[in-house]
């Protein structure tokens, strides 16, 4: 019951997805529509897991007055306040939308934009061309950046963007095709191992 049934569920779900997609009867019976619905909806019903886990961690931090517990309090107020607001007036409600547009969206974009600086410092370390491979990577990255950004055309005429485009269309496209083929083979092998019950990491280690 604890290991065997989950393994059977895994195999049957995988086979149902394959059957639903590969065979006409699967489409005719609407197997995929039903399973897609089950997948998305069951996921939605489990969405509170994240809230519960965050609450456990941060309520414990507050109760034990751990260092920086005030931030935990701020997180809980923001999370429960916005969740209640969203549930009362939907996420499209006037106040909920205001918070989404003026707090969440700027925070989201700025955190992602922050990575520009860290990627620059990472590139400084990675791009110290110590080997031929690193030099190839460095030169390609510089050509692509100068070719795509307007400053490249100003500094080196349009030839740099032609070169960047050639790199992207042929050398890079071919390499990405190799990545994709190798990745697909790997994904299918892993999926087959999961279906056959050879890969059981998702069942956890406990009995």
């Amino acid at each position, binding site marked *: 019951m*604890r290991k065997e*049934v*989950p393994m059977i*569920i895994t195999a049957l*779900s*995988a086979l149902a997805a*394959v059957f639903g*997609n590969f065979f006409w009867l699967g489409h005719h019976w609407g197997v995929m529509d039903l399973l897609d*619905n*089950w997948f*998305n*909806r*069951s996921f939605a*019903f*489990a969405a509170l*897991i*994240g*809230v*519960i886990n*965050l609450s456990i961690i941060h309520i414990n931090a507050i109760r034990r007055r751990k260092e*920086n517990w005030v*931030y935990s309090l*701020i*997180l809980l107020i*923001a*999370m429960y306040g916005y969740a209640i607001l969203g*549930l009362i007036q*939907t*996420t499209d409600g006037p106040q909920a939308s205001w918070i989404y547009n*003026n*707090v*969440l969206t700027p925070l989201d974009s*700025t955190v*992602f*934009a*922050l990575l520009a600086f860290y990627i*620059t410092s990472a590139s400084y370390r990675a791009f110290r061309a110590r080997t031929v*491979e*690193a030099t*190839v*990577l460095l030169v*390609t990255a510089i*050509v*692509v950046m100068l070719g795509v950004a307007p400053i490249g055309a100003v500094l080196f005429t349009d030839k740099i963007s032609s070169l960047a485009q050639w790199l*992207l269309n*042929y*050398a*890079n*496209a*071919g*390499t*990405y095709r*190799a*990545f994709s083929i*190798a990745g*697909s083979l790997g994904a*299918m092998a892993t999926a087959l191992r999961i*279906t056959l019950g050879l890969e059981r990491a*998702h069942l956890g280690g406990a*009995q």
Partner: protein
Amino acid sequence: MQGFDWGTFVGVLFTIAVWTYLYKENPIWRVAEHIYIGLATAWSIGYYFYSYVKPTIMDDILTKHNWLYIVPVILGLMMYLRYFPSVAWLARYPMSFWVGYGAGYGLAFSFAPMLTWIAQTFVKLNSFNNIVLWLAVVTGLMYFFFTVNRENAVVKYGALVGRYFIMVGLGAAFGNTVLYRYNLFIDRARYVLGFLHLIK
């Protein structure tokens, strides 16, 4: 203060709060960070509730009496059993469904695109560009041959050439990523400077 754009003002404050992290980790950044995590988590709750939970219970089950939709409700709720040690193992059931279904999807949808990519590689080797494209695919794949003896000269040197093509691919991906991130940063900078009327 009539006509003052409070929304953008708050957005600018939070943008600057995140930027303070560039100096070093500080209380202003940590407040912004915790608010961000809290709001992002809460937003997903509202989204899932109105997109799936409410329609499933109120429309499909209670109104249309579509009893098949009780299955995802039970599966989803079973995940919460992980908080009760004596029955925590039951949470494996929904996890098994998700992983199995995902694996089945992978099996079903990986094959056709892969065949298309392979077919597209059968190009006439009558131009320099086509030769480069073909070489990049074939030698790039040779690099991933881990089950073939690398002592074989074709595989050995093919994989070596493939490594250089992979460096070209990674370099192009890195360059594009850097540009995208800077694009985002410039967008945020325009947002702040525009609010301060320093640019139009």
